């Protein structure tokens, strides 16, 4: 297939995944910031949301303070923010249109329909309820798009590149949450925030839609090291780093097999996967959670560039 087609498929999925991630951050942060301050609710949560969204540097260039309304606007619609939800959907749709015939009509309908829906928000001032509905709409888009891809695409390189986009982006997103919030996930002995952090932990779990999953997996009250374990190592958890890499490696192998050729991308993915399989949360704490996450984010970015050099240009 054309490199440009593969590139567009990969980025369509990345942008749709990112839009959903932004929606989840906003949803979880709204909940946390509404708590009384004695339970950990604080206006500072909004700047933390901006950082988790990866906009820590550009946000202050456009806003003096991070409030519920400024952050909502910035992350959802602001033309100043290249990775606002609106921009994610627009870029995804534009990529999709350029390679229209490589998508199934269900995938196209999901994306084009969402893009048309987005127009309705143009120039409107949104209430808190409106934002709530908007966030539900974005989550529904990603479910429909992803479901359409899963249910209707031919299992060939087009599908594999589109899946790669989902998992490379998802790994990055989960790692970013850990990067911003690592300080509340330190091991028991360090006692950084005590029980105040309980609501931080549940917020993290909500951001990756894993609050219920946590209880099913560990069957005990929420402990920060188990939250970290779930997000990093648990292969059953679809947003964990380990699960993302299991999928990345699987789809890269499928491409490698189909093309009868392995390359640096396959080797890098396998290396990260084996690291995630062989280490335990206690080792990570010994070496520093933050260092581990920073390295992971860098490696994941490098994998993205390697996939691009190997296949997409």
């Amino acid at each position, binding site marked *: *297939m*054309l*490199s*440009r087609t593969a590139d567009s498929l990969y980025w369509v999925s990345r942008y749709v995944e990112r839009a959903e991630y932004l929606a989840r951050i906003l949803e979880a942060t709204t909940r946390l910031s509404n708590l009384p301050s004695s339970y950990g609710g604080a206006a500072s949560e909004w700047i933390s949301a901006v950082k988790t969204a990866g906009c820590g540097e550009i946000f202050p260039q456009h806003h003096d303070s991070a409030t519920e309304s400024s952050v909502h606007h910035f992350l959802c619609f602001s033309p100043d923010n290249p990775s606002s939800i609106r921009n994610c959907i627009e870029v995804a749709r534009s990529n999709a249109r350029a390679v*229209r015939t490589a998508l199934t009509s269900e995938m196209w*309908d999901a994306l084009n329909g969402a893009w*048309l829906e987005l127009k309705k928000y143009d120039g409107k001032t949104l209430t808190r309820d409106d934002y709530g509905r908007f966030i539900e709409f974005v989550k529904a888009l990603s479910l429909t798009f992803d479901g359409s891809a899963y249910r209707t695409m031919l299992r060939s390189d087009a599908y594999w590149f589109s899946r790669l986009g989902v998992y490379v982006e998802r790994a990055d997103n989960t790692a970013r949450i850990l990067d911003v919030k690592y300080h509340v996930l330190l091991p028991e002995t360090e006692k950084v925030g005590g029980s105040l952090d309980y609501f931080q932990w549940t917020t993290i779990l909500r951001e990756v839609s894993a609050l219920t999953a946590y209880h099913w997996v560990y069957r005990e009250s929420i402990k920060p090291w188990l939250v970290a374990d779930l997000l990093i190592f648990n292969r059953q958890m679809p947003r964990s780093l380990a699960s993302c890499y299991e999928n990345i490696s699987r789809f890269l192998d499928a491409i490698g097999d189909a093309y009868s050729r392995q390359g640096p991308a396959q080797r890098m993915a396998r290396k990260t996967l084996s690291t995630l399989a062989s280490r335990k949360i206690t080792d990570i704490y010994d070496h520093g959670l933050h260092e581990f996450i920073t390295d992971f984010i860098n490696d994941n970015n490098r994998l993205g560039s390697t996939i691009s050099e190997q296949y997409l*240009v």
Partner: protein
Amino acid sequence: MAAFDEMSGFDGATRDAYAKLETWLKTTPPEEFSTRRSQADVFFRRIGITFAVYGDEQSTERLIPFDIIPRVITGPEWATLDRGLRQRVTALNMFLKDIYGPKECLKAGIMPDDLIYRNAGYCLQMINQPVPHDLYVHIAGIDIVRVDADNFYVLEDNARTPSGVSYMLENREVMLRLFPELFAQHRVAPVENYPDALLATLRSLAPRTAAKDPNVVLLTPGQFNSAFYEHSFLADKLGIELVEGSDLFVRDEVVYMRTTQGPRRVDVIYRRIDDDYIDPLAFRADSVLGVPGLISAYKAGNVTLTNAVGTGISDDKAVYSYMPEIVKFYTGEEPVLKNVPTFRCREPDALNYVLNNLGDLVVKEVNGSGGYGMLVGPHASKAQIETFRKKLKHEPEGFIAQPTLALSTCPTFVASGVAPRHVDLRPFVLTGSDGIRCVPGGLTRVALKDGSLVVNSSQGGGTKDTWVLDA
């Protein structure tokens, strides 16, 4: 000037070919028609949305109106058209080969030398340059109008990158869904094999250096081009890659496309980019749509461009006026299809006549298209006529003039009900190294405004399904 109506002739008596349609129009309750019309609309919007061009606000208005009353052409009428189209396209190919080669037609005095040599459409790069299989116009759209029961005229030849075939195909799809009972009553020749015919044609044109299974691609200017929808539609139907200029590169005079498995050779390029933009090294240096070096690969005979470079000269309306002589000269036959009588304003007598009769004539720029840059005398204001008078005096060789034809009409749904509206027809003629293919029918365009003769979609025209009845 009364126009010939394809359903009821000049005298109101229903012609045989339309008998069943007329009954259908008379007996179907009006509500039924409005339901079907809105279903057609939904269907087109959906296709449009599916293919994306009509998704956004500005271009919703560009959704070309579709009229659900089909236009009928009888088997014998089509047989004549088909014969004439094949003859005309054969002649066009021989003409292009000649003017870029030995120039026998100029030696024989068929037309003045300067009409070719000083023509902006004459591509100097193509002189004495062989092209694969000696063919230039592989995909032609010949615009035809009708004036009475027996007479069809060619209005213009489109030998560059004619568009509209996707509407021909989709109009039929919509009609088959909406009115299966009508198809049961009529024996309508299918058009759905067009994509197969096109693919076979393109494959037959591969250069001799190509592999046995040639790689055919469709080159588009990209998603912001107004015809992108058609490009994407055709690539999908043909099962070929839809490429942009940046997907291709040239190495050692061979064209490759960038794929996930490395470079892959390209043998035939169905290009929907004009000559000017196709290679910044050969033509417009500011073009970002093209492929640098493409023309060098083309000249080396390693890739086929369809249509060939330099075919624009045969779209020239002054060259058009010589088509009857061109057909006779190359095929040795009388032309089957008539030309509209044309005054060449480059000739002083003709110019005089045109200037004295501007109010009755249609004046066109020789290299205009899309219905722009023309004067329709009977519908023009005094000021418009005076503007054209000045233009004509200033640059007579830039114009031709034709009598206003009474184009035939077809029954069409309009706000007030069913009314006659003027139509034309664009059949698509494919020429490969293995022969000519022409799917029966074509794209019928209809001028939706009462009395209007301008059918171009950019100026408020609509389309109809075109039925060629199997005898």
